[in-house]
């Protein structure tokens, strides 16, 4: 008996000792893992097609409503101007048919609630006791917005002020230029808002946006909080049951051209002490695609989420070039994107690019270690589990699953699928998606570092852009003694074989009518279009645009008046337009450059266009805005013409990129060109030119 007691005593001493002797040299073992439980949200649909997703959370007495209208990507330029959706969203906060903005703001604030509408819906959150009142306001905003004109003017003004601040913010500058480099300005993702866009947007555009896209059948309402399914069913039906469903048009958008080699885009920022560097390219990866998870895991090893990514370890912890360097790889319904980002002191800008490109290449070429894979998987699963702490994440996952039509157990099996990704899978992802030799290298920084960037461009040239992604041209001075008049004269000579006004007049007199046929193509229209242009002395013309045998658009001027016919309806020219057309020569109008006394020229210098030197000449006719001609120094023929044209009260910048001139009967014609206007780009090819054909006089008129 005694013995036993002694034994127990010794044992207890041992155990005390064990506890006191902490071995600090070893990482303590993990305890037993708790199972991860992703709650199943309740999902139901209203009769009008509104999908409602509910995640109950009774921990705190709050309820939030988040409406997502699944607006498809589209060119905002064609809907009034870039930023029309944001303006519409902002304007939704400006009151309804039954309350002014001031009343609405006060109602929301008195509830201690938050409410914010945006271009794609709203977010509303309050304590449970105020949820009915808040939902009433939210529903009124979506169903009966008032869109007051004075509010639009105010928001336009602040938007323009906001655009001003973007001019000096390196992050915005880099984002704008990356978008333009990756997607092009004709693509919805490459559109950059300018003050001109803001000016062009009217109340009608805003209303049109709301009318076209705010439909319940493409919308999702996510409800999170201290509320039951029964309550939600009743409340949401009451608030949104009367919202009318309607078809939402599918608007075609242009495709994305992947870069074929490394290109450097440099954005000068005055007195910058750091370079903001992004190495980026578009990639085709859809949400929920089979590759998605492995591709993201691969990116995490390179420089995603975790601190131990290769980019962070190399550029910060080893080289101390930066406070942080990361990469992102995103999937998207239209087109995804890869991008690295970081800010680096001026002196190491080039070294940093070498290292980043090296790390991207290293993912393809060098081994990915088991340790890296383990860490990246743990980082991703840990992040996933931590995010579940917030019920709104659970709701977001459900929304994503439903929106992209993913399998019901997509997130339940998330951790298992992650675990199964192998080293070979990751290598395959790196090979497939990373393009260290076909990337856009965007640098926002001090002018002094620009030269050091040339080495990274496949052609040894850098494209200089301003903060909104417009190319900045370096202008060299024109040779001394050369005048603008001479450059224009040389052009006429190159085109017509003479610059003698009398001879030119004679040439013109011989022609009564002319018919030219062009083939036109644009990304948004699958079939090529044919344009037939008839001109008849002195000022009459007919322009027909045909798709197959059908005429889809027509414009004419019969000497006295003109107009147009299209699917949008018929329009007559205004008196002003008629007068303008009356005085215009339609045959060989370029000759007017020499003969008209209303023309003024200014030689600005020499600029590079597509790798060749061109004279830059501003041509101003009377009171009109100047047109800019870029005339090839060697051939003396224009390679580019830029103009601001006004149509229906809106100013649109147009740019004609002339790719080829062709000589027909001694006169040179533009045979191939690319015309960009208002976010659209046409390719135009000249098929035939005939002189003195018979013009069907019935074509004049509507």
């Amino acid at each position, binding site marked *: 008996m005694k013995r036993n007691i002694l034994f127990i005593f010794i044992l207890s001493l041992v155990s005390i000792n064990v506890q006191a002797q902490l071995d600090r040299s070893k990482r303590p073992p993990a*305890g037993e893992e708790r199972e991860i439980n992703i709650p199943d949200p309740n999902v139901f649909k209203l009769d009008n097609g509104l999908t409602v997703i509910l995640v109950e959370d009774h921990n705190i007495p709050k309820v939030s409503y988040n409406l997502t209208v699944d607006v498809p990507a589209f060119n905002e330029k064609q809907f009034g101007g870039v930023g029309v959706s944001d303006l519409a969203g902002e304007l939704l906060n400006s009151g309804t048919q039954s309350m002014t903005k001031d009343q609405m703001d*006060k109602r929301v604030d*008195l509830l201690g609630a938050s409410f914010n509408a945006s271009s794609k819906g709203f977010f509303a959150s309050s304590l449970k006791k105020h949820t009915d009142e808040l939902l009433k306001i939210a529903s009124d905003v979506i169903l009966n917005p008032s869109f007051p004109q004075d509010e639009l003017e105010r928001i336009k003004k602040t938007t323009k002020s906001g655009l*001003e601040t973007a*001019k*000096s913010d390196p992050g915005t500058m880099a984002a704008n230029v990356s978008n333009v480099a990756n997607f092009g300005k004709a693509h919805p993702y490459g559109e950059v808002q300018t003050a001109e866009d803001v000016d062009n947007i009217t109340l009608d555009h805003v209303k049109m946006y709301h009318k076209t896209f705010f439909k319940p059948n493409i919308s999702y309402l996510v409800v999170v909080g201290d509320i039951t399914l029964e309550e939600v069913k009743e409340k949401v039906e009451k608030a949104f049951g009367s919202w009318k469903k309607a078809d939402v048009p599918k608007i075609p958008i242009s495709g994305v051209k992947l870069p074929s080699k490394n290109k450097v885009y440099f954005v000068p920022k005055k*007195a910058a002490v750091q370079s903001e560097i992004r190495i980026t390219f578009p990639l085709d990866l859809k949400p929920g695609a089979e590759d998605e998870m492995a591709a993201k895991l691969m990116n995490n090893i390179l420089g995603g989420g975790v601190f131990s990514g290769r980019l962070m370890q190399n550029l910060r912890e080893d080289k101390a070039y930066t406070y942080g360097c990361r990469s992102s790889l995103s999937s998207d319904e239209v087109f995804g994107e890869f991008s690295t980002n970081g800010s680096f002191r001026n002196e190491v800008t080039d070294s940093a690019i070498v290292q980043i490109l090296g790390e991207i290449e290293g993912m393809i070429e060098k081994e990915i270690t088991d340790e890296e894979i383990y*860490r990246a998987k743990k980082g991703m699963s840990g992040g996933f589990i931590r995010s579940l702490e917030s019920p709104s994440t659970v709701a977001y996952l459900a929304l994503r699953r439903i929106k992209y039509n993913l399998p019901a157990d997509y997130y339940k099996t998330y951790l298992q699928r992650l675990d199964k990704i192998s080293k070979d899978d990751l290598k395959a992802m790196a090979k497939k998606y990373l393009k260290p030799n076909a990337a856009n290298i965007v640098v926002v920084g001090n002018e002094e570092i620009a030269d050091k960037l040339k080495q990274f461009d496949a052609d040894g040239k850098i494209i200089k852009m301003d903060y909104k992604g417009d190319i900045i041209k370096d202008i060299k001075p024109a040779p001394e003694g050369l005048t603008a008049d001479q450059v224009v004269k040389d052009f006429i000579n190159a085109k017509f074989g003479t610059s003698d006004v009398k001879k030119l007049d004679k040439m013109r007199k011989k022609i009564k009518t002319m018919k030219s046929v062009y083939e036109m193509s644009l990304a948004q229209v699958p079939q090529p279009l044919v344009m037939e242009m008839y001109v008849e002395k002195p000022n009459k013309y007919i322009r027909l645009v045909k798709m197959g045998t059908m005429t889809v658009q027509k414009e004419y001027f019969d000497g006295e008046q003109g107009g147009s016919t299209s699917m949008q309806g018929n329009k007559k020219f205004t008196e002003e337009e008629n007068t303008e057309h009356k005085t215009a020569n339609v045959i060989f109008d370029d000759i007017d450059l020499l003969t008209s006394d209303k023309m003024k020229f200014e030689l600005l210098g020499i600029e590079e266009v597509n790798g060749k030197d061109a004279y830059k000449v501003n041509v101003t006719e009377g009171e009109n805005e100047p047109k800019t001609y870029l005339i090839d120094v060697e051939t003396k023929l224009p390679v580019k013409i830029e103009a601001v044209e006004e149509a229906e009260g809106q100013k649109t910048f147009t740019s004609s990129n002339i790719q080829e001139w062709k000589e027909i009967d001694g006169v040179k014609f533009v045979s191939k060109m690319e015309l960009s206007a208002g976010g659209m780009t046409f390719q135009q090819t000249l098929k035939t030119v005939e002189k003195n054909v018979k013009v069907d006089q019935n074509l004049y008129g509507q």
Partner: protein
Amino acid sequence: MKRILTSLFFAGAILVSNAQEKPKKVEFVEYDLPNGLHVILHKNNTNPLIAVSVLYHVGSKDEDTNRTGFAHFFEHLLFEGSTNIGRGEYSELVEDAGGSLNANTSQDRTFYFELLPSNELELGLWLESERMLHAKVDQQGVETQREVVKEEKRQRIDNQPYGTFLTNAFKLAFNEHPYRWMPIGSMDHLNAATEEDYVKFYRTFYVPNNATLSIAGDIDIEETKKLVKKYFSGIPTGEKLNVFRDVEFLSPENFVAKYFPSAPDAKKEKILKDLGSKTTEEILKMYFSNVSSKIIPIPRPTQVEPALGGEKRMIVEDNVQLPAVLLGYRMPAQNSDDFYAVQILNRILSGSKSARFNKTLVEKEQKALFVQGFPLPLEHPGLALVLGISNMEVSAEDLEKSMDEQIDKLIAEGVTEEEMEIVKNKIETDFYSTNSRVGGISESLANFHVYFGSADQINKQMEKYLSVTKEDIMRVAKKYYVKDNRIVLHYVPKSEQ
């Protein structure tokens, strides 16, 4: 008819919101270890997650005038490793466990935290106790992090439009008190720092009696208490901790030279041998059993900033596109009663869409793109700032005039009952949001303990706010929001000058 309905609605809303419920209490346990470490535990088993955080009561105001930026620099250095954790392993260990970690530094404190799956509680405790006992700082770490911090300054301050406004505001508003510099500090000071400086700073401030360990989430209170004891109770205090760190970080020769300069050679020989073979604890037991464990008080800044004594102004030419106006009013410390009233006053000016600055300056007069006030919650008397960015074609002078009009109007006419309701209802809603995540709760509890002397302040805040009256608002407006008590900064585009 519509009008009547609307006003009825307003009345209804007020009635409803008057019925404020008492928010659910945040439960927690708190105690001190004998070495002075304060421990706070909050249990919430909803998700299998925990937050482990340590708040060191050291910020930029504790720095030597010639070594500014040190507290923040230490935040970087203390991720470098410890006696048992190699360089770069802090983040790896946490990431491998599926967790995340970070830290931040203010004028008053340095805060480290890990968010971990709850089965990794012990890992979090190990990491934090290693940092507290014997963080290791080598020359390579110092060199690297010094450059990283310089990049941080360039990225966050020098290269950002208006990025220098806090630095300039505090420089203008303070002459005596160390709030006159920002946590990022001076790069020259960091360049000039020696190893001795680092050792001194670490030993002065990184001691258990200057730290608060706050853990929130999926824990068992009793089990956690045991583990806290396991990892933290062995951390010595006072001179003993200094010797402990010397045993580990000085070379044996230097150690002997420092502590046994006149010992006979034979004894020196033996100590050298023991240093190579025994654990630190054993060395302490063998040779330093008499060394003092008495807690050494933490030096605190004692400078008291005299009253500003008149408006101070400064014009900053910067690479910005729109002019900006920054007003800074000298304020009492965050734990003073006046500060609650100041916060409510500030929200009446700029806390919501219907707030005065937004309604008048942004929406009606359209002078500003944005106007926002933020009273900085500081331990010592600090500043309440109001930042306005001009709309296009509005000068800084013009905007300042309009901002002044609003402040003067408030002083002259007071605030309405409705405005008080709005703010108090918002504060009630915010209370729940802040305390909905384990990370947020662990930080709040630690802050309240350190700045208010009681973690339980988390449950008393609401009452404090609700007890503020219209008269209190008037009083603090008249007392603090006056020109003699403020600084004014104008940011103007460089090209304009």
